[in-house]
């Protein structure tokens, strides 16, 4: 079957035996172990697999390997110069162009090919050359910077030998490292293709798992017969839901989901059975041999359908096994102050309906899990997860194995954005199959399965009212929200609260009321996506506020200034906001965008819009109540002068490991180059609750600060003893400790660590933790939305509307974000740019859409089987912005210095996304005088609204 291919790969002649139906990507990854080339879509839609074949950048996933016989192949692994990474690879690292890094091997190959034929490209040429490589993290901004820096040989921080230190910029005044521009902890490995993501791992005797998925949006399973699949040669194990009967959920008291369906399937794509086989082809064949007898049920595809009288129930029983009467998953109603009175007395009221469509994370790395059991019955699970600890707990529950017998490891992770923040069927199935097969099992989602796993942004319908007095002060907000939850609970109760609880701020509300109702539907489950639950209601708030300003004749920035909260204030729903830099953010974007000279004065078709937002720096409380720290950090010193920092945080590309290294460096004086962060391994690292709700810089940062301080105390004591003085006589400087009373006397930090070990007589090891503080409003639900600190953001967007076609071109976004204190400004800017990109893309392009049923004349005779089908579960039909669609992004860092955060730091990863959508909508108003209240702002909708001459479109 196999044939031998002769290739020259990265300058070496190789012979590789491969089946003729393999692609070049399979030959590289499976045949040659060159895992630097990534698989993101498997169909030529994303560019992550780009390699050079005879010098030409091609998509390895769509290249027939056999057709490349005799060719010269260069992969990302072959780009390095003698003696180290290439200048392009260094530039990507130093410029902060690598976040999750998963798209970057392909991106770097494309960039290298460009520079080899055009050593001095213009920015437009760079954008064009990279337009077939999708990146989901960076907003491309720092990628462009990196390519141009490499071309001009101006790589920031680069030393004569080509290397770049972890911290190369100037620290903020009064700090040793904090505020210095710098690299990320793991980035150069991503740039060179050596970083190992979950799918890059292979174990001896490893089997490949696949999951059979429901073809029906709603059906009862009468029976499953796996005997024919089990009999297929090469099949090692088959599992069904009956073997994993315990329900699970990331929220421990609302388990409504099973590893595989036990009685019903609830959306097209719901998992039904799983197989492990010798290879993927055999696993696919085995799936086709599983016979499932379904009783098809009517499906509900929208909250309207789900709440209609007599609607079929998505779940017959709730998580306490009580019969359900309806499809309402969670309902919340809260009121603060006399809303009706304020509405009655208002000078202006804006009242309307808004619709926020669903969107998904589309991280370029598909989910992947690899499971192996030891002879002692201990499970190791490698998974692309951003919540290792919660996964650990749910694995124990579903697999019926004590937590102490389970180790969860998070390898390098290729983007998450909330899409990997709870357990998924592949993790349970890989483990169950591996146990049954007696060998390691890996399951890699297809891109289509990623769309079914979903947990993306909830579609929300709003009946929204806002009232203001004659001066523009917001006196009331009243919001009635319906969330389309999809088939399962996920974080549902949190999302239901967040849709209301996170809205009051940075705009101050006089009174506030919201009703929020999450409804089950027969579609993939919605969940947390960057800005969990809170991005959607910002759309009506910030666009309605613009309408209020218009009615009152106020400038849109001015009305936001009049309503801006100040540090130390409480929101109307009782949350303390210790720091708030929204005014500084408004000042920054107003000045940079030329707002005063340009807003309202641009030619028809071009406009500016503003919007603001606020977001949590972690949730106040853990998902399951406990008295233990929410984040723990340990530091172990080595005699070499190196510190190893152990943290349970999940670096998902946002750079948490780098942030923690900077904190420990700041405390100890030890250069970040000499700090290694070990993260994401439940056997090695103390618990951190995970990378969600923008909690890591704040909470793990404080834990690292405490551990770092303890390390410094030991080091200072050791230095003091060495010089026979008191600790107060020691000054900690970058890289050295100095005797204040005799400044000629200095010790490098490595020497101090050896003194410390001698002083203690034990290994030098310290720990720190972030402990839960009492926070939140004093009412039921008052702790949801409570956070120790809140970020603030303001955007100004500039758009150009084609009035003949309806196309909205977002040309530029100025985004200022108050992150409290930037530990490493490169990373903060990267979070702002990536957030702006994701929000912009969501505003004009993205829609996680389903067929809702055909008109009668089009429907197939019999049952309409289109109902509930995803319209295009792939990266061609679900469109995320390319380098050519992304606006120029100007990121401004505002530092309000939060009193509680590490050095004043707070979140930067999610807040900066929120204003992009309403800022674009408000800019469309400024450009052409239409108010868009339905997302996304597609050309069809915009043109229809222009034609209607109306203030809105349905």
């Amino acid at each position, binding site marked *: *079957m196999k*044939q031998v291919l002769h290739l020259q790969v990265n300058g070496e002649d190789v012979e590789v035996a491969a089946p*003729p*139906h393999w*692609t070049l*990507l399979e030959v590289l990854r499976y045949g040659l172990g060159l895992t630097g080339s990534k698989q993101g879509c*498997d*169909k*030529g839609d994303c*560019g992550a697999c*780009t390699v050079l074949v005879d010098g*030409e*950048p*091609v998509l390895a*996933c*769509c*290249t*027939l390997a*056999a*057709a490349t016989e005799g060719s010269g192949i260069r992969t990302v692994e072959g780009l390095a110069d003698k003696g180290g990474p290439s200048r392009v690879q260094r530039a990507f690292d130093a410029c902060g162009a690598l976040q999750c890094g998963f798209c970057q091997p392909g991106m770097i190959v494309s960039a290298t090919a460009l520079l080899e034929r055009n050593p001095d490209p213009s920015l437009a040429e760079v954008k*064009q*050359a*990279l*337009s*077939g*490589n999708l990146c989901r993290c960076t907003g491309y901004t720092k990628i462009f910077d990196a390519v141009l820096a490499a071309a001009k040989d101006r790589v920031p921080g680069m030393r004569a030998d080509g290397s770049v230190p972890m911290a190369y910029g100037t620290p903020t005044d009064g700090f040793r490292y904090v505020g210095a521009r710098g690299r990320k902890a793991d980035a150069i490995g991503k740039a060179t293709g050596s970083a190992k993501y979950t799918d890059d791992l292979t174990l001896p005797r490893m089997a490949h798992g696949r999951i059979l*998925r*429901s*073809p029906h949006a709603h059906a009862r399973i009468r029976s499953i017969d796996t005997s024919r699949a089990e009999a297929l040669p090469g099949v090692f194990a088959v599992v069904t839901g009956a073997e994993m009967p315990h329900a699970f959920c990331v929220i421990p008291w609302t388990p409504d989901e099973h590893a595989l369906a036990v009685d019903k399937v609830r959306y*097209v794509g719901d998992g039904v059975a799983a197989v492990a086989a010798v290879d*993927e082809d055999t696993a*696919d064949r085995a799936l086709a041999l599983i016979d499932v007898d379904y009783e098809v049920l009517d499906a509900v595809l929208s909250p309207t359908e789900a709440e209609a009288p007599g609607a079929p129930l998505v779940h017959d029983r709730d998580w306490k096994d009580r019969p359900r009467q309806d499809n309402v998953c969670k309902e919340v109603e809260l009121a603060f102050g006399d809303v009706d009175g304020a509405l009655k007395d208002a000078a202006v009221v804006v009242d309307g309906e808004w619709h926020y469509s669903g969107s998904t994370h589309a991280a370029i790395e598909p989910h992947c899990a690899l499971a192996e059991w030891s002879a002692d019955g201990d499970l190791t699970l490698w998974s692309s997860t951003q919540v290792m600890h919660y996964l650990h707990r749910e694995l124990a529950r579903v697999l019926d194995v004590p937590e102490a017998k389970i180790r969860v490891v998070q390898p390098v992770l290729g983007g998450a954005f909330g899409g990997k923040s709870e357990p998924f069927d592949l993790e349970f199935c890989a483990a169950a199959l591996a146990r049954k097969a007696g060998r390691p099992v890996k399951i*890699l989602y*297809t891109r*289509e399965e990623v769309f079914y796993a979903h947990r993306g942004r909830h579609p929300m319908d709003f009946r929204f009212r806002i009232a203001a007095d004659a001066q523009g002060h917001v006196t009331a907000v009243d919001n009635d929200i319906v969330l389309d939850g999809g088939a399962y609970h996920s974080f549902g109760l949190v999302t239901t609260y967040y849709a209301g609880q996170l809205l009051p701020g940075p705009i101050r509300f006089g009174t506030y009321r919201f009703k929020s109702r999450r409804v089950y539907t027969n579609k993939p489950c919605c969940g947390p996506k960057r800005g969990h639950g809170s991005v959607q209601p910002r759309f009506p708030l910030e666009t309605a506020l613009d309408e209020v300003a218009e009615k009152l004749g106020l400038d849109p920035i001015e009305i936001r200034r009049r309503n801006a909260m100040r540090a130390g204030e409480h929101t109307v729903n009782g949350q303390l906001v210790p720091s708030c830099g929204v005014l500084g953010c408004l000042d920054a974007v107003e000045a940079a965008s030329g707002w005063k000279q340009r807003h309202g004065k641009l030619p028809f078709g071009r406009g500016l819009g503003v919007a603001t937002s606020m977001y949590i720096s972690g949730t106040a409380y853990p998902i399951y109540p406990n008295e233990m720290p929410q984040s723990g950090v340990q530091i172990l010193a080595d005699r070499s002068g190196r510190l190893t920092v152990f943290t349970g945080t999940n670096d998902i590309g946002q750079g948490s490991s780098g942030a923690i290294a900077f904190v420990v460096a700041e405390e100890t004086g030890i250069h970040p180059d000499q700090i290694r962060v070990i993260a994401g391994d439940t056997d090695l690292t103390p618990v951190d609750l995970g990378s969600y709700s923008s909690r890591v810089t704040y909470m793990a940062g404080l834990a690292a600060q405490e551990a770092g301080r303890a390390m410094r105390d030991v080091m200072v004591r050791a230095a003091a003893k060495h010089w026979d003085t008191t600790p107060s006589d020691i000054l900690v400087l970058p890289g050295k400790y100095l005797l204040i009373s005799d400044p000629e006397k200095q010790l490098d930090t490595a020497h101090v660590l050896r003194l410390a070990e001698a002083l203690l007589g034990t290994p030098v090891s310290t720990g720190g933790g972030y402990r839960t503080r009492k926070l939140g409003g004093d009412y039921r639900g008052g702790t949801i939305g409570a956070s120790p600190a809140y970020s603030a953001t303001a955007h100004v967007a500039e758009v150009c509307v084609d009035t*003949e*076609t309806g196309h909205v071109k977002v040309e530029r976004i100025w985004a200022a974000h108050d992150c409290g204190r930037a530990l490493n400004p490169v990373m903060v800017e990267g979070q702002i740019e990536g957030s702006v990109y994701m929000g912009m893309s969501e505003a004009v*392009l993205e829609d996680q859409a389903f067929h809702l049923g*055909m008109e009668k*004349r*089009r429907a*197939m*005779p019999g049952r309409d*089987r*289109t109902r509930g*089908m*995803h*319209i*295009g*579960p792939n990266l*061609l*039909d679900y*469109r995320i912005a*390319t380098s*050519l*669609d992304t606006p120029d992004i100007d990121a401004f860092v505002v530092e309000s210095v939060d009193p509680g955060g590490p050095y004043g730091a707070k979140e930067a990863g999610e807040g900066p996304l929120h204003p992009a959508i309403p800022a674009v909508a408000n800019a469309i108003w400024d450009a052409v005088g239409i108010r868009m209240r339905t997302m996304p702002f597609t*050309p*069809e909708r915009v*043109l*229809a609204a222009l034609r209607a001459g109306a203030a809105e479109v349905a």
Partner: protein
Amino acid sequence: MLRMPEFEVHRPSTAADAVRLRSQLPDAMYVAGGTDLLPNLKHHLHAPKHLVSLARVEGLSGILRAGDGTLRLGATTSLHAIATDEVLRAEVPGLAKAASLVAGPQHRRMGTIGGNVLLDTRCLFYNQSLPWRRALGSCLKSEGTWCHVIGSDKSCVAAQSSDTVPMLVALDASIEVTLPDGSTETIALAGLWTKDGRFERNRNLPPEALLTAVVIPPRAAGHRSTYRKVRARQAIDFPQVGVAVAAGFDGDRLSSLAVVVGAMLPHPKRLDHDDVAGRPLDDALVEHVAERAYKQVRPQPQVHGDPGWRRELARVETRRALRELLPG
């Protein structure tokens, strides 16, 4: 990763061998760049037992200009080469532009002009994985019996989605093919397509025929051409609307005009319009032709985008394409 059906790969070095292999082997298909075929194989839309790769076939690639102005584009010439060739950019600017707008940069390096001419029609109910299609009950173009787009068991409306095809039709191009009996034939491109979008029914060509070259006849004096593409993103996407125009000018008067609309129907649609000879390309004529685009093309929801909006865009983009031909 996604699995393709198991097949053998053959790498002939001559066109004659390629045609012979394709004719003799059961369930065989040609593959050139693979950017269209491989995703379709990963979707199990075809189940070939043999692929005849054209990668090694000699003499199939390259751009030749004859003394009379005839342009001969070898079938495996890459779209990147078409887009960047100086002669083509000067003599048939609309074709170079159309090629430059295909998909993304890597697709244009891999994809060939022959492959782009023979690109399979596309539909939201067709270009999906096998499990997806099975859940749907498949469609008329794949394994099923029903077109979900128009509600019919007779006709497939999957869209002709190549960017170069409308332009080549506007240029009166033809293709050279080698037939199973070894003979070669030249076929006018405009007549290649049927009104049925199904794979083997879409072309008036035996499936074993090998496309070896695209031939563009000498252009009219004062030739100008352009192509406009509507898509949601500025890269990667297939067209939602494509409009190609080619015109001959005698001073500021038209001598000829061809307008071809793509991405709307299973075939490229050449517009019928009033005789233009001797007329200036003035507003009245532009509006006349743009209106014809709207009237003569009725798209369906077979690809992304509201069909009513796409129809409107055919008018807008025809108008814009014509205006691009005006100097200054």
